[in-house]
C-alpha cells in the first residue's frame, strides 16, 4: 500500500469512472490519462535547483487543477519523493485561490498553516523535522544545517492575529517571503506553494483600483525569485495573461529563476484516452484492470464520435470538464438502465439523481455484482449530445436539491420556479471579459443571498449555497477575498468552473422572454421571418372549442370531404398550396411516458395549418372576401370567434390565436402555387407537342409550333424570388 497524500488509501479504484466538474485528486491517479509527457516535462523543469517560480499556464478548462492534483503532485511527492506541498486543514494540497489580492490570500493560507502545524494544538499534523516542543505557542525557528545564512529572528509568532499578519505583509511583502523561507528551511523536502487562478489579479479589478494589489504581488514574486531557500512556487493562470505577467516579472524578478510551462488542451487522441481509460483491459500498476472494476464498454465508434463532437464544440471553459460531465451522465444513465432493466420500448433514459450521501469522495469497495453493460449510441442520442449537457447538469443538480435535502421547503407546484430562480442566481456570477470570454465572477456570499431572496427562492440561501459547493458537485466555490484597504476578509462565492459560466450565459441568452414564441398577443409586425420560406408562408392557428361541439365540426368536415363541389371555394382561393384542419381532443395530446404529466384541459383545440403565397394580410383578406361562409362554418364553434366579416376583428382574432413556425422548409420556394400549376400546364403541353411534332415537315412544324406557343405563352412567366420588402 502506498500512503496517499490525501491521507487515504490510494490503491483503491475511485467510485466514479468520470469526475463530473470536480477535479481529479490523488485518489484518481489510475484514471488520470493522457498527461504523462506533460508530467515528465514539468517535473524536469521544476526540478532544476535554481528555479523558484514555475508559471503553469493553459487555456481555461485544460485541466490545470487535475493535472496538479492527480498528475504532478503524486509524481513529485510519491515518485520523486523530494517535495512537499503546502497542505490545508484536511491535509489536502492547498491551492491558494488568487482573488484580486493574491499576496493577502497567500499570507492568510500561510498563517493558517503555521497556526496548525507549529502551535501546540494536539490535532496538528506534524512532520519529523518540525519543532516538537509543544510547550510553546511560538514558531521555534531552527535553521537547517547548511542554511547558516538564515536570519535567526523569530519572524512569526502564532499569537499574531491573522488580520494583523495580512496587514503587516501588505506593508512589507518581504515579511511573507521571510516567513515562507523559514517554513521551507524547517521541512525535510522541497517546500512547494501553489497559487491558483492568478489571472484574477487582473480580471477581477482590471481598472486602477486593482493596481496596488497587482504591484504588491509582483514585488512579492520578485523577492521570492531571489530566495536562496529550497522552495518553489507554482503559479497557475490562463494562458492569455502570460505575456502580461512575464512583462511585469521582468522588472524586478530574477528571470533566470523562473520557468514556464504551457499545458496544452487535450488532443483528440488524449481525449480518447481519457474517455476509454475506465474501460481499458490493460493493467494499471498497483490497481489492476480498470474494466474489471467498472465493467462497461462503449459501442464501437462512439468514443471517437464523442471526442470529435467535444472538439468541434469549441467550448469556452474547456473540453475536459465537458467530457467529464457528459461521460458521467451517459455512464450513469446506461448503468441505471442496465441495473433496472428499463424497457427499451419506453425509450426514455434519464440521468439518475444521486443522493447527497453518494457524493462522498470516499472510495467504495469493488462490487462484483455489477453486470457488464455498454454505453450505446442510442443513449448518446437520446440523452442529448454534448450541446446542452452542461446546462442539463446544473439543472439535474438543482433538481437533486429539490428532491432530497430541501424537498419539504418547496411545494411541488413551485419547483420549476425554484429551479429557475436558482439558475438566475447562479447566472449573476457570470462575467463577460472585454475580449468576449465568459468567466466566473467572484461576489460576496451576502450579495448572492440577497439575490436569491430577490429571485423569490424559497430554500434558505445559506443551505443551498453549501449544497451547490459540495465537493462532488462543485457548481459553486467559496473564496475568501481580502479587502485591500482594511484587509478585512469577505467570504465570497464563484462558480465552480468557467465552463458553467459559459453554459449559464448561453442559457440566459436562450431564456430571454423576447426570444420566446409567446402565443397570442404578439404584434403582427414582429412575427418572425421563420414563418416564411421563399414565396410561401406557414400559418399555424389554434382555437379552443367546447368538447361537445367537436362532433358537430367533425360531421361538417366529413360532408366537406365527401362533396367535392363544396371545396371549390378553397380552390378559388388561389394562394393556398396545402392546408389542413386537425381537432385535438382535450385528452388526446400524445402521452408517452408515466413520467410525462397528464394534460388537464377543459377545451378541445382546433388547429389550422396552411401553406400559402402572398402576405398575411392578403391571405386573410382573401379568406374574408372569398371564403367567409365556409370559414365561418368551421370556426364558429371556436371560443370567441368573431366571424370573418368584417375583416378587422377577424384579423385581430387570428392574430391572437396564431403561433409562429420555428422552421419551415419548402421544396420550391421560388414558385407560388399558381406558378406550379402553370408549369405543370406547360410541361404537359410540351409533352404532347413533342409527341405530335416528331414526324412533321418543316412547314407543318412552323404552324404547330405557333399554335403551341399561343397555348403556353400565358404560363411562361418566369419564377424567382419576390422583390425584397422595404
Amino acid at each position, binding site marked *: 500500500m502506498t500512503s496517499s497524500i490525501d491521507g487515504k488509501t490510494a490503491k483503491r479504484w475511485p467510485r466514479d469512472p468520470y469526475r463530473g466538474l470536480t477535479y481529479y485528486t490523488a485518489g484518481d491517479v489510475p484514471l488520470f490519462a493522457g498527461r504523462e509527457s506533460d508530467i515528465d516535462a514539468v517535473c524536469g523543469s521544476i526540478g532544476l535547483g535554481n528555479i523558484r517560480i514555475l508559471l503553469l499556464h493553459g487555456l481555461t478548462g485544460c485541466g490545470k487543477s487535475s493535472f496538479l492534483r492527480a498528475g504532478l503532485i503524486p509524481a513529485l511527492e510519491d515518485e520523486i519523493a523530494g517535495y512537499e506541498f503546502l497542505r490545508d486543514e484536511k491535509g489536502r494540497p492547498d491551492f491558494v485561490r488568487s482573488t484580486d489580492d493574491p499576496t493577502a490570500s497567500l499570507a492568510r493560507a500561510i498563517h493558517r498553516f503555521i497556526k496548525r502545524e507549529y502551535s501546540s494544538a494536539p490535532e496538528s499534523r506534524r512532520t519529523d523535522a518540525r519543532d516538537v516542543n509543544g510547550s510553546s505557542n511560538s514558531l521555534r525557528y531552527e535553521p537547517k544545517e547548511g542554511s547558516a545564512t538564515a536570519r535567526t529572528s523569530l519572524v512569526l509568532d502564532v499569537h499574531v492575529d491573522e488580520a494583523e499578519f495580512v496587514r503587516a505583509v501588505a506593508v512589507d511583502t518581504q515579511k511573507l517571503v521571510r516567513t515562507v523561507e523559514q517554513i521551507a528551511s524547517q521541512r525535510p523536502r522541497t517546500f512547494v506553494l501553489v497559487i491558483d487562478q492568478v489571472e484574477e489579479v487582473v480580471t477581477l479589478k482590471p481598472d486602477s483600483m486593482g493596481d496596488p494589489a497587482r504591484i504588491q504581488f509582483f514585488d512579492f514574486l520578485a523577492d521570492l525569485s531571489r530566495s536562496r531557500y529550497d522552495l518553489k512556487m507554482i503559479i497557475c493562470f490562463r494562458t492569455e495573461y502570460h505575456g502580461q505577467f512575464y512583462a511585469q516579472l521582468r522588472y524586478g524578478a530574477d528571470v533566470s529563476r523562473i520557468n514556464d510551462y504551457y499545458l496544452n488542451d487535450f488532443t483528440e487522441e488524449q481525449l480518447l484516452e481519457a474517455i476509454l481509460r475506465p474501460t481499458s483491459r490493460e493493467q494499471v500498476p498497483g490497481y489492476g484492470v480498470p474494466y474489471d472494476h467498472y465493467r462497461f464498454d462503449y459501442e464501437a465508434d462512439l468514443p471517437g464520435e464523442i471526442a470529435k463532437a467535444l472538439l468541434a464544440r469549441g467550448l469556452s471553459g474547456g473540453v475536459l470538464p465537458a467530457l467529464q460531465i457528459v461521460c458521467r451522465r451517459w455512464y450513469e444513465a446506461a448503468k441505471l438502465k442496465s441495473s433496472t432493466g428499463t424497457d427499451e420500448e419506453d*425509450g*426514455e433514459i434519464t440521468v439518475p439523481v444521486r443522493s447527497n450521501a453518494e457524493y462522498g469522495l470516499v472510495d467504495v469497495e469493488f462490487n462484483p455484482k455489477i453486470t457488464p453493460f455498454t454505453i450505446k*449510441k442510442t443513449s448518446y*442520442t*437520446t*440523452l442529448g449530445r454534448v450541446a446542452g449537457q452542461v*446546462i442539463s447538469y446544473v439543472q*439535474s443538480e438543482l433538481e437533486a436539491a429539490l428532491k432530497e435535502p430541501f424537498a419539504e421547503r418547496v411545494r411541488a407546484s413551485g419547483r420549476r420556479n425554484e429551479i429557475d430562480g436558482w439558475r438566475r442566481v447562479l447566472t449573476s456570477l457570470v462575467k463577460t471579459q472585454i475580449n468576449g470570454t465568459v468567466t466566473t465572477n467572484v461576489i460576496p456570499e451576502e450579495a448572492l443571498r440577497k439575490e436569491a431572496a430577490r429571485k423569490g427562492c424559497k430554500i434558505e440561501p445559506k443551505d443551498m449555497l453549501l449544497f451547490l459547493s459540495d465537493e462532488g458537485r462543485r457548481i459553486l466555490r467559496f473564496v475568501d477575498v481580502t479587502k485591500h484597504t482594511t484587509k478585512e476578509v469577505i467570504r465570497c462565492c464563484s462558480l465552480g468552473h468557467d465552463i458553467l459560466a459559459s453554459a449559464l450565459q448561453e442559457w440566459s441568452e*436562450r431564456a430571454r422572454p423576447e426570444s420566446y*414564441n409567446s402565443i*397570442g398577443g404578439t404584434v403582427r409586425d414582429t412575427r418572425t421571418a421563420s414563418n416564411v420560406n421563399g414565396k410561401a408562408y*406557414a400559418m*399555424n392557428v*389554434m382555437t*379552443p372549442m367546447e368538447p361537445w361541439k367537436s362532433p358537430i365540426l*367533425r360531421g361538417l368536415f366529413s360532408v366537406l370531404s365527401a362533396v367535392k363541389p363544396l371545396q371549390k371555394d378553397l380552390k378559388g382561393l*388561389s394562394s393556398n*398550396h*396545402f392546408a*389542413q*384542419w*386537425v*381537432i385535438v381532443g382535450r385528452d*388526446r395530446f*400524445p*402521452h408517452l411516458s408515466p*413520467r*410525462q*404529466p*397528464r*394534460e*388537464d384541459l377543459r377545451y378541445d383545440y382546433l*388547429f389550422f*395549418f396552411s401553406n400559402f403565397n402572398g402576405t398575411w394580410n392578403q391571405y386573410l383578406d382573401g379568406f374574408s372576401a372569398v371564403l367567409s361562409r365556409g370559414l365561418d362554418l368551421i370556426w364558429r364553434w371556436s*371560443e370567441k370567434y368573431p366571424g370573418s366579416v368584417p375583416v378587422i376583428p377577424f384579423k385581430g382574432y387570428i392574430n391572437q*390565436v396564431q*403561433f409562429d*413556425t*420555428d*422552421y*419551415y*422548409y*419548402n*421544396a420550391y420556394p*421560388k414558385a407560388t*402555387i399558381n*406558378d*406550379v400549376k402553370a*408549369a*405543370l400546364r*406547360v*410541361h404537359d403541353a*410540351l409533352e404532347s407537342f*413533342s409527341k405530335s411534332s416528331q414526324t412533321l415537315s418543316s412547314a407543318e*412544324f412552323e404552324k404547330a*409550333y405557333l399554335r403551341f*406557343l399561343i397555348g403556353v405563352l400565358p404560363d*411562361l412567366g418566369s419564377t*424567382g*424570388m419576390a422583390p425584397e420588402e422595404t
Partner: protein
Amino acid sequence: MAVSGLTIFSPILESDAMGIEHASSVRRYLATLPRTHNSPFARVPSTHFARLVVMDDVVFVGAPAREEHLTSRYLLFEATFDSDLDTYLARMAREIPDHVDSIWSHCVGYPGAVDPTAFVGYMKKCQVEATFSFADVSDRTVQQNLKALQVQSALAHFIERNQGRPATEIQMAFGVLLESLAKAPPPLPGGIDSETTAAENGTHD
C-alpha cells in the same frame, strides 16, 4: 400518387427531466438549420413542405373563455409529402438520422433514428389524424412539380432565343431542347442560395 399530410405532436422533455432548456435547445437548433437545397428535408425528396414548431402552450382568447395551460410543451411537426406515411418516416430516419436525432432527442420517449422501425412507431404514437385536409395540386410528386418548373423555365429561354429564326432551325433546336431536357439532372428541391437567386432575377439572356 396522392399528396399526404401528417401532424405530429411530440411532448418535449420538460419539467422533471431537463426543464426549459429542451424547448430552447430544439428551437435554437431549428434556427440554425439550413432552409434551402441544403436543408435536411431536401434529402428526403418526397417532402413538399415541412414545418417544425415548438408549441409552448395553448392559446387563451380572453374571458369569458377559461384560461388553461398545457403541462408539457410539444414539438409540432407538420409535413406534406408524396408516398405513404410509413415510407416517408422511415426515409427520414435513414436519410437524415443526425438531424432527426438532434431534433427529437429533446422529446419524451424518443427511441433514436438508429432503428427506423422504432422511429416510425414512435412518430405514429405522436401522430394526430388530420380531420380535413386540402391540396390544390394533389396529384403530382415533388419531382414532377420541380421538373415542370424546370421545363417551363427552359422553354421560356428557348422561345426567347429562337424568335424570328427560320422554322427549320427552330425545329432542329427544338429537338436539341427536348434531348437536353431529357438528360437534365433532376432539379434540386428546396431552391438555391440567395446569390444565384439575385442573378436569376436579373435580366434574362
